[in-house]
C-alpha cells in the first residue's frame, strides 16, 4: 500500500469538490476499498473520508417509499422496521450479505459501488481488463465458477457481488447524487451496466459523483417481496446465485410480478422477459418454468459455471411457487 493523504470531508459539496484532485477517492465504510488498497488493486493518493457526513437518516416517505442516506450502515437499513414491512426483499438481501461485523461498518452507498470479487481482478499480477484495460481476461479460461452467465463480454465476465443491488433493482430504487455539476439522480437500473468493451467502468456514475441517498419508491407489491440467496457455505459468502422476487397473484392469475437475479452478471439482472411472460398468466409451476427459461435463454455459461443456469431457473420457480402457495 503506498502512502496517501487523508482528509475528512467537511460537507458533501466540499467532498465532491476534492474529487478534482488527481488520485482522490472517497472513503465511507471502507470494507471494500481498504481490502483493495492492501492488494494494490486501488492506490489512491488522497482519501476523502465522507463517513462523518450527515447522510445516515432513514426517512419513511408519506407515499409509502423510503429514503435512506447513503451512509446508512447495512445493518441499520436491514433492521429498520419500516424497511422490513414495506421492502422485505431489501432487508433480507442485506442480512444475507457478508458478516454482522461487515454489515455494521459497510454503508449502503458503498455497497452499491463495491468491486467484483473475480479472483483475477483482485490479483495485480494477472490479466484483467477491468483493473487494467487491454491486458485481457484471465478469468474466461481460468477459475470462473462464480462468474457471469448472462451479459458477459469477451473482455469481462465479472459479476456484481452486491446482494442489496439485486433487491434495489427489483423495486426500481433510485440513487440521489451530488455531482460536480450539482445534485442529480438516477435509477439503479441506469446506475449499473454490462461490461461490453469497457469493463473498467462498473457503473454509469458521473465522474466525481457522491451517492447521497438511496430512495425506495412506493411499491405496494414490494410488501410481498423476498430474496433467496444460494452460496457454497451457509453464511458469510458471496452468492453463487440469488433471486429477488415480488408477486401479486389473485384468483390464480399473476397480476404483477418482479424478478431480479444476482451473481449472474456484471449488474443485478432484472428479469424483464420473464416478468412480461408471467404478467396475466396463470400462476403455475409450468409457467414459472417457461418464464425462467425465457429469461435464461440468453445465458452463455463458461466451462465451470454452467450450474448457475439450472440454479437460477430452479430458484426462480421455487421462490415464485413458495410465494404463490403463501398467497393462497
Amino acid at each position, binding site marked *: 500500500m503506498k502512502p496517501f493523504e487523508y482528509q475528512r470531508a467537511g460537507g458533501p459539496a466540499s467532498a465532491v469538490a476534492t474529487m478534482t484532485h488527481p488520485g482522490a477517492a472517497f472513503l465511507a465504510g471502507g470494507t471494500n476499498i481498504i481490502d483493495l488498497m492492501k492488494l494494490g488493486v486501488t492506490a489512491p493518493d488522497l482519501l476523502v473520508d465522507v463517513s462523518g457526513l450527515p447522510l445516515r437518516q432513514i426517512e419513511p416517505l408519506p407515499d409509502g417509499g423510503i429514503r435512506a442516506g447513503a451512509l446508512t450502515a447495512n445493518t441499520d437499513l436491514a433492521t429498520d422496521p419500516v424497511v422490513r414491512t414495506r421492502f422485505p426483499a431489501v432487508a433480507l438481501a442485506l442480512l444475507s450479505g457478508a458478516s454482522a461485523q461487515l454489515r455494521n461498518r459497510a454503508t449502503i452507498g458503498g455497497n452499491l459501488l463495491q468491486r467484483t470479487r473475480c479472483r483475477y481482478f483482485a490479483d495485480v499480477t494477472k490479466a484483467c481488463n477491468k483493473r487494467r484495460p487491454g491486458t485481457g481476461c484471465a478469468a474466461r479460461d481460468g477459475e470462473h465458477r462464480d462468474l457471469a452467465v448472462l451479459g458477459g463480454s469477451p473482455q469481462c465476465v465479472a459479476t456484481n457481488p452486491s446482494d442489496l443491488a439485486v433487491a434495489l433493482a427489483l423495486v426500481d430504487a433510485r440513487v440521489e447524487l451530488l455531482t460536480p455539476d450539482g445534485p442529480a439522480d438516477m435509477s439503479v437500473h441506469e446506475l449499473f451496466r454490462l461490461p461490453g468493451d469497457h469493463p473498467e467502468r462498473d457503473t454509469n456514475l458521473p465522474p466525481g459523483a457522491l451517492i447521497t441517498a438511496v430512495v425506495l419508491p412506493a411499491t405496494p407489491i414490494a410488501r410481498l417481496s423476498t430474496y433467496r440467496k444460494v452460496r457454497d457455505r*451457509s453464511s*458469510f459468502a458471496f452468492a*453463487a446465485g440469488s433471486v429477488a422476487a415480488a408477486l401479486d397473484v389473485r384468483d390464480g392469475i399473476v397480476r404483477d410480478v418482479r424478478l431480479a437475479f444476482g451473481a449472474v452478471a456484471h449488474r443485478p439482472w432484472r428479469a424483464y422477459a420473464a416478468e412480461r411472460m408471467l404478467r396475466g398468466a396463470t400462476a403455475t409451476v409450468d409457467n414459472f*418454468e417457461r418464464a425462467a427459461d425465457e429469461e435464461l435463454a440468453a445465458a452463455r455459461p463458461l466451462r465451470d459455471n454452467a450450474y448457475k443456469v*439450472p440454479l437460477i431457473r*430452479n430458484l426462480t420457480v421455487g421462490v415464485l411457487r413458495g410465494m404463490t402457495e403463501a398467497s393462497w
Partner: protein
Amino acid sequence: MTTFLTSLTERATQPAVGVGSPRIEAWDKVTGRAPYAVDHPVPGAAYAWVVQSTVARGVVHDVDTSRALAEEGVLGVLWHGNAPHLEPVGDPELMVLQSPRIAYRGQVVAVVVATSPEAARGGADLVRVREEGTTADTVLRIDHPALYQPVQVNAGYPARSAIGDVDAGLAEAAVRVDATYHTPAEHHCAMEPHATTAFWEHGCLVVFDSTQASTAARDALAGLFELPPQAVRVVNEHVGGGFGSKGTMKVNTVLAAMAARLVGRPVKLALTRQQLFALAGYRTPTIQRIRLGATAQGRLLAIGHDAVSQTSQLSEFVEQSAVLSRHMYAAPHRLTTHRVVALDVPTPVWMRAPGECPGAFALESAIDELASAGNWDPVRLRIDNEPPVHPEERIPFSSRHLVECLRDGAERFGWSGRDPRPAVRRDGEWLLGTGVAASTYPSITWPSTALARATADQRFDVEVNAADIGTGARTVLRQIAADALDVPAHCVAITVGDSAIGPATVAGGSTGTASWGWAVTKACRLLRERIHRDHGGRVPDGGVAVRADTTLDVRDRPEFSRHAYGAQFCQVRVSTVTGEVRVDRLLGVFAAGRIVNPTTARSQFLGGMTMGLSGALLERSILDPRTGDFVTGDLAAYHVAVNADVPRVEVSWLDEHDPHLNPMGVKGIGEIGIVGTAAAVANAVHHATGIRVRDLPIGLEHLVPRSR
C-alpha cells in the same frame, strides 16, 4: 497406595486422569493475554514483508531494491544476492533466497524490513523483481507420464503391498465396486498465520515461533545458520492452530532470523493469509481408485486401493492415502499402491490425518457403494468384514473396537430400521438421508524427554517441550504428571513450548499425549523414587530434579498393530431446488484408548469432525494451471466451515483399555475425528438423493437438479 513423600500434606483424593477440566491457559486466552508468536513485547522491533515470485518455474535475473530502500522507514531488503548463506538441513523448502532458481509460484524472492508494518508492506510493493519463467507443469492427472512408484510413502510405509491376487479375487466376486475418487488440494488455514519474532543476542538466536515442534525448529535453525543447538532457542508458548502446517519449519522462521541479523534488531514477520497458500504447505490433491469384490454373503474377497498424489520439484512428499486399506477390513486378496508426480508446485505437507483423511473418503465411500450394490446394511457389512489380526502384517492389534463403535453409534443414532432406498425421504423441498463411515488413525509414540522437579515447599514443576496448538496438551500433561506423582493437579506447574526445556517430539500425528506423557510419567516416577531412595521421603531445601528420556522405552515396545478406530454417522438434507446440502446431525463414537480429559478430548473430536464436514462440503484449493498458483488464496475464496454450517454434533467414546501402548494407555485423538467424516456425508447425500458424489467437495454443481 501410600504417598512416596512422607512429608506431603496434600494427597490426591482421586486420579486426575479421566476428569474433565477447563484448559489451564483458558483464562489467558479469553482475556487476550496469551502471547502468540508476534504478540510478545519486543522493544524496537522491525517488521518484515515477503515478496513472492510470479512465475512457477524459472529464474530470478535481478532484484532492484533501490526504490524500496529509498522509502521512508525501510531498513533493508534481502534477496538471493545479499542473503546470508544457509547450510542445507534436508528440507530444500528452507533454503530460501539461496539461489535464483524458482521452483514454484509464490516462492520468496525478497524480504523488506522496515520500522513499521505499513512501511514494510509499502516497501515490498516497490521491489522490482526481474524474473523469467518457462512452461510449468502444475496439474495432477491420473495419466501423467511422470507418475512413478516411490520406495516409501510418508511415515515410512512401503509404497506397495500385495497379498493374494486381487484380480482373481475380483473375478470370483459376486458383487463388485470399481470407482475412482478425487480429493482436492486443501489448505490448513490455521487462524494464526505462520509468524515469527526473531532476535540475536550475543551470537545466540531467539525466536518466538508459530510452530508445532520447537525442538525440531531449533535443530533446523542451528543447522541452517551453523550454530550449536544450545545457541538457538525457539519459544512456542501458544500456537494458533497448526493442523500439520506448522509441523516442520516454514520459511517465515528462517527469514525472520535472517532479517534480524541484517538490521541488527528484533524482527517480526507474519506471513499474510494470501502468502500462506504458497508458503505454508497444503494437502495434496489425490486420485484414488478403489476396487472391492465380495461374496454373495457380503464377505470381502478383494480390496484394491491405488492412490495418486503430487509432490514438488524440491522434495518428495508422498501422501499415504492407501495405507488404511491395509488394515480396515479382512479379505484374502489385497493390493495397495501409491504413485506420485513431481510438479512445479509448492511441496505438500502433512494436514490433519495425512493419508487417512483422503484415503477414508475413498475407501469408506466404496464400502457404501458395495453395500448398495449388494443390498447390505453398511454397518453390518463393515462388522462382517472385521479382521481378527492385521490382515497384511499378520500381527495382533493392540486393541481394536471398530465393531463396538459401529454398534454403539448405530444405537445412539437410531440407525436400526433404516430404509436403505435412496431418494425416498422428503421434507418439503428437502430430501433426507443418513450415512455411516468408519474412522481410524495410527497410534504412534515418539521418544521425548521431560523434567520433573520437586521443591521443598511441596510444589512440583514439570517441564516438557510439548506444543499446545489448541489440543489441551498442557492440561492433560499436568493431569498425567499429577497421577504419576500421586498429588493433586493443582500442586503441579507444567511448562511447555520452549526448546530450552529439552528435546521432545512434534505436536502432530496424534502422537503428543502418548509421547510427551510417557516422558512426563517416567520423569515423575523417577522423581518419586529419587526422593524416596536418596532423601528418605523428604525434599531437601535445594529441591530435587530428574530428567527422563523415553528413547529406549519406545524402541523396545513389542510388535503390535496400534490404531484408534471410530464410527461416524451423519444426517443430511439436500434441496431439490438448489442442490444445497445441510448437515443436520453428526455423531461420532471413538475407541482411542484412555481419555485423559473428557472436556478437551470432546473438543478435539468435535473439532476433527467439524473440519471433516468442512472438507466434505466446502474446501477446495483451485490451482490455475496456467500460472501454477492457488487462485482461491484467501478466506473469502477458500471456504472453511462457519458457525452456521455446523449442526448438532454428538461425540462419545468407549472406555478402552489397551496395555500395549504406553504407561498412560492413550492412543491420541487429534486426527481421528476428521477421518471418515467426508465419506459419512457423501454416503448420506447418496442416501438422500441417489447421487453418488466421488469428487470433493460436494457442491452445488453436483446436486442442482438440471431438469424437471
